[in-house]
């Protein structure tokens, strides 16, 4: 009985040490997953107030007149450029 207990104790200690080392290694390598984002441009019609959200294009900035309103033909102005999260399916 005594012999069995010592063996078991050593096995448990060795196993615990191995588990702790593996956990430590995994923890240091694990990187928190960053949510994927996409940049969108919000355009607003300077006349009728219609808003359109499109993908950001290089050169876009808030205040830039870009394109025409599909409803009334008035110029569209960029009112916001922002990042939104993409939900992965």
């Amino acid at each position, binding site marked *: 009985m005594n012999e069995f207990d010592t063996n078991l104790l050593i096995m448990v200690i060795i196993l615990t040490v191995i588990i702790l080392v593996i956990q430590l290694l995994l923890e240091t390598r694990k990187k928190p997953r960053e949510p994927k984002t996409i940049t969108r441009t919000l355009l607003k019609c300077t006349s009728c107030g219609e808003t359109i959200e499109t993908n*950001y294009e*290089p050169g876009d900035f808030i*205040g830039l007149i870009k394109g025409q309103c599909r409803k009334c033909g008035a110029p569209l102005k960029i009112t916001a450029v922002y990042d939104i999260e993409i939900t992965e399916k």
Partner: protein
Amino acid sequence: MADWTDYIGQLIFIIFFILMFTGVNQRVQMKIWAYDIRNKLNIIKSYVDDGRKRVASAMRKLGIREPDPIINRYMDFFIIDPVDKEPIDIIRRLDHLLTTREKVYKGLLVRELPEAGKYERSLLESSLEIIGALNSVYKTIRHYLLLGEKHNNWILIMQLEFIMPEIMRIVETYHKALDPFMTGRPVGDSAGPLVAHRIMEKGEVVSKRIIEDTLVAEVRYLNRRIYVIKAEGPGSNVGKPGKVLARIVEELNGNIDLIITVDAALKLEGEENGEIAEGVGAAIGDPGPEKIAIERAASKYDIPLRAIVIKMGLQEALHTMRKEIYEAVERAVEYVEKLILEHTDKNSTVIVAGIGNSIGVAQ
């Protein structure tokens, strides 16, 4: 006859005992920590190298054949703090140093890129500042790691190991900030200038002028005369909102009923991104000269000085503006309107200063 497990047990105990009293366990621990720090240091180095490559590529596109000597000059550029044992005129001395640094930075790019526009140069300047900051962190961490190893100073290595996650978070934030700053997209810190921009859009702009890279617009809005101040955009620029505000106050002989500063502020852990808070004082995060200029101008003429902050993390402040920050900007505009209506009468004169980097926000 003893079992082999007894011998192993005793051997482990003796080794453990020896380690405890000779300090070898600390050395082993130090080696593990140093290994981990070195791995993270290599990641920081890869960020510095990546940033260098991207900035060099952007410079080549703008016509510079040999971008490396220019990048090297920026990477190790430093500013020596003014003497603070004698605080008299320290703000003036600090302002002088900051202005000189700005002129050197800008001048160097103007000489190297005479054909490029102000917008492109401002983006390059900010990108160079980012890789300069990353390089500075890399060199500092390397210094302490090598120092700790050289003198077997396990306390130093331990402190470094425990602070590394926070440093890595900041470094990763800076590295990712290269994306908006190289492409000219508005960042979270542009919240203040965007509030100013919205007020200009909503009101009737009477006049506009640029003073020291800072826009001053006189706007007729809510039956009041509102002076809107923001850094000139859409390039990467913070302007001189404090000095310009003080100048406007002097021009109007202090006949101003209310000053409101709007800025992005770092949130505390647990607070939500985009939370808005109001207070009293100058909401501006400069090293001193701009903030003191606002405080002095307001106190000289006894003008109420109010502050509105939009809270966000460091990551949100330096990365492309998140949608929740944009929505907070819209709420902040309403908050500014509420403050103006509550604290001033019709035909009053108000100054609204949108503090922050105007990248991606025109006037």
